[in-house]
């Protein structure tokens, strides 16, 4: 009997792993390797011959402020992400307490996350529109005319406007994650704290926050890697404008490849982004592992 299982095992291994491994090789490792190779060349996407450039593409990326500098546009998304986590924790704590209509509010705050992202983007185009937009109309109705802005047309403002859309969309999602973590804190710990004379703020500060620290950390890393790869919102709403003010590194990469046919440079940019993502993940793992040892 064991002999027959031995043969079955071999058959199952081959049958179950062959196609997934083929797909993995074709769509993950081959592209990554090809990307690395192309990043040292000047390939234009069509011609069969390429010239080897060595590190020129990378030099170009780091010395040309038009390329590496666009990461500055992505800082508002990091700030927005931090704010998003603070708001999400606040509402998770509120919805974890005894309160009427808990489920209604939970369902409502999560709604933006399940809406189609492109539909959300256009919804906010209408909110932010300078002449007909609902935000400026609202400010007008409140008499706050001097706060009316060209929300997507002002170079200093556009990235904050876009980051706020992403906050609107994801805050409920982040809140649900925190809520899940809060519900796994045993209730008797709070009872013990109350018996020891801790007030509500003290038990939040010394009990709730430390229990959330792993999830907070995870979310902060997600915020960072998400902010590195911002793409959809500026792609749909501003196409990188006005005057390139809302370009992001990924937007620039796809433009370099598919608009300017400079696949070599675009590949190097992809590798840089990939490298940065991996660095963030490595740091995250290091930090989490160190905590695990403590």
């Amino acid at each position, binding site marked *: 009997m064991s002999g027959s299982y031995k043969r079955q095992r071999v058959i199952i291994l081959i049958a179950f792993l062959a196609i997934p491994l083929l797909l993995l090789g074709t769509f993950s490792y081959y592209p990554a390797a090809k*990307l690395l190779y192309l990043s040292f060349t000047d390939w234009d996407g069509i011609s069969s011959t390429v010239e080897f450039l060595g590190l020129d593409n990378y030099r170009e990326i780091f010395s040309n402020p038009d390329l590496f500098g666009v990461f500055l546009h992505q800082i508002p998304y990091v700030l927005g992400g931090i704010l998003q986590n603070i708001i999400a924790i606040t509402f998770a704590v509120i919805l974890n307490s005894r309160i009427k209509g808990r489920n209604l509010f939970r369902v409502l705050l999560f709604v933006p996350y399940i809406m189609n992202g*492109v539909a959300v983007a256009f919804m906010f185009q*209408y909110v932010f529109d300078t002449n007909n*937009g609902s935000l400026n109309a609202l400010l007008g109705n409140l008499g706050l005319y001097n706060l009316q802005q060209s929300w997507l047309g002002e170079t200093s403002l556009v990235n904050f406007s876009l980051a706020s859309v992403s906050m609107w969309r994801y805050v409920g999602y982040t809140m649900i994650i925190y809520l899940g973590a809060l519900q796994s804190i045993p209730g008797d710990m709070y009872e013990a704290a109350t018996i020891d004379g801790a007030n509500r703020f003290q038990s939040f500060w010394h009990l709730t926050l430390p229990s959330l620290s792993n999830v907070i950390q995870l979310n902060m890393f997600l915020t960072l890697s998400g902010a590195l790869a911002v793409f959809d919102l500026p792609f749909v709403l501003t196409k990188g404008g006005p005057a390139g003010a809302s370009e992001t590194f990924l937007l620039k990469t*796809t433009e370099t490849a598919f608009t300017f046919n400079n696949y070599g440079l675009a590949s190097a940019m992809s590798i840089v982004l990939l490298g940065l993502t991996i660095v963030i993940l490595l740091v995250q793992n290091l930090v989490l592992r160190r905590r695990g040892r403590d």
Partner: protein
Amino acid sequence: MKKKWDLLQVIKYVLLAIASLVVLFPPYVVVLNAFKSTDENSSPFALPASFLNFENFRIVFEKAHILQAFGNTFLVIGVSLIGNIVFGTMVSYAIGRIPFRGKRLIMALFLIASIIPTITTQVVIFSLIQSLGLFNTLMAPIVLFVGADVLQIVIYMQFIRNIPYELDESAMIDGASLLRIYRSIILPLLGPATVTLVILKTINIYNELYIPFLYMPKQNLVMVSTSIMRFASNNQAQWGYICATILIIMIPTVLLYLFLQRYIFAGVTNGAVKG
């Protein structure tokens, strides 16, 4: 003491009310303006002449290829999910249950691949898809959602560890074949993981913009994301039309969400903590 407690409750409700208003404000304006014809009051807060004015919706259904977009989107989601479930469970069974040399290596290969953001490799995948002859076919997104994403394997690998191996052993004592064990024991017990996967993947694919945009420019291969994008850029600032499109796209998902909320919350929480 009693008074202080009340104040805190008041603050909580005030914050919740503000958050609800912020969440509802953009969709509220969309609903109002989806029913307005082009010659009506253009102030975003003005009520439409009639909430029975479906003219915008009629035009959108005609011009934005919405039904086709929903059809294509659900087809792509359906086929991709089947592929993900079949391959995901197969890989997790092979790696999780059968001892063999190179097991750790294969697992590492899948896990490492899961950290490569797929959008960074599009530069190369684009020419790959072209040379496979999949450009401008529905197979392009399907192949990418099945092959270039390893979320399903990460999720199933986590779950299969919690299924006791004694179940396999007792089935083997009864003489069941490994294929049968996979089909009748492991596959059903991975059900909760499958629910998580279906929810996360459906949301991801439904929202995906760049893959359909890049690989399927053909008119009749439009998906939900690309349909609204094309329609809105052809009808700049025609807010009545755009709002109607947004509403048509949102209503089915919001309804689905209200019915499935319990599973969706569970799926999102599981996916975030374990994935």
